[in-house]
C-alpha cells in the first residue's frame, strides 16, 4: 500500500473510533412522520395529482349534478343527493387506489424506492408516510365534496352520531382496502411512464360506472350491480348513501343498508389486498441485470 493509502487509513481509524459513541438510529415513528410530511408536500404541489386524484371527483359532481339538476328518483331523493354520496365513494377510491397505484409505479420506475431502500429508512416508515398522505387527501376530498353538496344540492349533513360512526368505519375500511389494492396494482404496469396511468385507472373507471358513482345505482342493470358488488367500491357508495341519503333506503334492492355485509366485504378486501401486497411489492423493477 502507498503512503497516501496509509494516511487515509489513519483517518478511517478515527472515523471508526467515533462510531463507538454514535447516537441511536432515529425511531420509525419519527421517520414515518417525516415521510408523511414529504408525501403530502409532493401530493399537493404536483398539479397532476391534484387535478386527477383530487379535483376530478368535485368537478364530476358539479358537472353531473348540473346536467341532471332537479331530476327526482321518487321517495324524496334527488339525483344530486345520489351523486354526492356516489362521488364521495369514488373520491375516496381516487385518493387511495388511483393515487397510490400510479404514484408508486412511477416511484419504482424512477428509482425512488430503490434509493430509499439503500438508506437506513425503515420500510414501515415508507408505508406510514403513504397512510398519512392518503388519509389526509381522502379526508380533504370528502370535505370538498360535502361542501359542494351543501352549496349546490342543499344536502343536509346528518346530525346523529350513529350516522357519523357509520361514515367513519365505511371511510376507514374503504381507504384501507383501496390503498392496499392500489399498492398491489402499482406492480401491474410494465412501464409506468408509457401505460401506468391506463393500466391502473381503467378498472377504476369501469367500477365507477357500475358501482353508482357516475351513473345513479338505480339505473344500473341488476346483473351489472351483481358484478359491481364483488368489489369494494359498490359497498363504499352504499355505505355513504346510508349516511348522506338515508331516505333512499327504499330504492335499495334489498330495502336495507346491509351494514354487516358491507363491513364483511370491505374487511375481506383488506385481507386480500394485504396478501397481494406482501406477495407482489418490490423496491426495484425486476430486471435481468
Amino acid at each position: 500500500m502507498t503512503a497516501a493509502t496509509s494516511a487515509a487509513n489513519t483517518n478511517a481509524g478515527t472515523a471508526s473510533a467515533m462510531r463507538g459513541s454514535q447516537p441511536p438510529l432515529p425511531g420509525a415513528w419519527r421517520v414515518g412522520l417525516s415521510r408523511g410530511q414529504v408525501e403530502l408536500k409532493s401530493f399537493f404541489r404536483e398539479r397532476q395529482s391534484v387535478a386527477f386524484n383530487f379535483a376530478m371527483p368535485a368537478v364530476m359532481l358539479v358537472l353531473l349534478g348540473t346536467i341532471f339538476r332537479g331530476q327526482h328518483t321518487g321517495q324524496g331523493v334527488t339525483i344530486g343527493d345520489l351523486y354526492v354520496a356516489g362521488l364521495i365513494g369514488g373520491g375516496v377510491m381516487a385518493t387511495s387506489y388511483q393515487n397510490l397505484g400510479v404514484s408508486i409505479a412511477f416511484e419504482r420506475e424512477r428509482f425512488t424506492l430503490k434509493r430509499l431502500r439503500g438508506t437506513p429508512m425503515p420500510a414501515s416508515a415508507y408505508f406510514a408516510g403513504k397512510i398519512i398522505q392518503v388519509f389526509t387527501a381522502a379526508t380533504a376530498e370528502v370535505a370538498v365534496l360535502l361542501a359542494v353538496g351543501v352549496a349546490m344540492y342543499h344536502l343536509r349533513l346528518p346530525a346523529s352520531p350513529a350516522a357519523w360512526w357509520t361514515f367513519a368505519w365505511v371511510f376507514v375500511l374503504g381507504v384501507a382496502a383501496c390503498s392496499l389494492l392500489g399498492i398491489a396494482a402499482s406492480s401491474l404496469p410494465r412501464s409506468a411512464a408509457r401505460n401506468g396511468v391506463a393500466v391502473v385507472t381503467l378498472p377504476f373507471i369501469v367500477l365507477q360506472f357500475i358501482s353508482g358513482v357516475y351513473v345513479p345505482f338505480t339505473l344500473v342493470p341488476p346483473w351489472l350491480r351483481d358484478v359491481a358488488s364483488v368489489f369494494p367500491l359498490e359497498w363504499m357508495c352504499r355505505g355513504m348513501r346510508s349516511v348522506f341519503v338515508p331516505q333512499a333506503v327504499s330504492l335499495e334492492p334489498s330495502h336495507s343498508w346491509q351494514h354487516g355485509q358491507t363491513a364483511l366485504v370491505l374487511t375481506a378486501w383488506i385481507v386480500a389486498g394485504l396478501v397481494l401486497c406482501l406477495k407482489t411489492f418490490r423496491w426495484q423493477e425486476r430486471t435481468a441485470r
Partner: protein
Amino acid sequence: MNATDRAVRVRGLRKRYGGDAAVRGIDLEIAQGEVFALLGPNGAGKTTTVEILEGYRDRDGGEVSVLGVDPRRASRAWRARIGIVLQLAADAPELTVAEMAEHFAGFYPSPRRPAEVIDLVGLTDRARSRIHTLSGGQLRRLDVALGLIGGPELLFLDEPTTGFDPAARRAFWEVIRALSGGGVTVLLTTHYLDEAAALADRVAVIRDGVIVAEGPPGALPGHRAGEAVVSWQDRGGTRRERTAEPTRLITGLAARYGGEVPGLTVTRPSLEDIYLDLIGGRQ
C-alpha cells in the same frame, strides 16, 4: 493490510440469471480510505457485483464482507454507514433541494449538516429551488449530496459524472478527493477512463464476469514500463511506432531528417489504450 483495514472483501463471488452466468468468481479487496474503480463494458457484471455489495441483490455463491458485515444481512445500522449514489434517481420533483436534503438527513443517526453537503456539491444557490427545475448535472450533484448526507464510511458511486460538462466534472473530482482525504472509502464504477485514472488508487477491469486485470491505474498489466508510442510525419502521412526504446528511435529519426523530425509526438499508452486491449480480442 490486516482484516480491519478492509472496507470490502469479496471471495469467489458468483451470480446467475436463469442459465446466464453474470458473475463467475470475482475476488476483490478494497482498503479503508481507498478510491477503487471498477471498469468494464456494459453487461460485464459490474452492476451486478456492485448491487450485491450494496445489499440490493442476493448472490449464488462466494463470501462478501462490506464494512465487516455480509450485505445479505443488511441492517439499518449497516445502511447508516454506507452511502449509495445510483445511476439516476429523478424523484420528488416538487420538493426543493434543501427539503430533500433535510428529509434524507432524518434517516441517519449522525448526519452531516444538509446546508454543508449542499454547499460541498455546489448547489447552495439552488437550495430553495424545486428539484424539477434543476439541470441534468445539478440533479446528479443532488444525487451525490444525498449519498453523502449520512456521513458514510463507504460511498458507492455509479457513473457519477454522466451528463456533466468538463468544468463540473473537475469540480466533482475535487469533492471525491476531499472525501477520500477525509478517510471515506469510495467504490466507483465509470465509463470514463480519464476519470478512473484521475481519481482511483486502484482499478479493476471486469470482462465476462471475471476480473481480467487489477492494479494502480498507471501499472496495469499490459502497461509495460517505459513503452511509448512515437509518431511523426512522413511523405506517406502519419507514421506510428510502439517501442520500449523511444530515445533510440528518435535519435535515429533525427539523424535521418538531419535535425527536426516533422510532426514528432511521443506518448505513453493511456489507461484507455490498455483498457481497450484488455476488453478487446485477447484476454
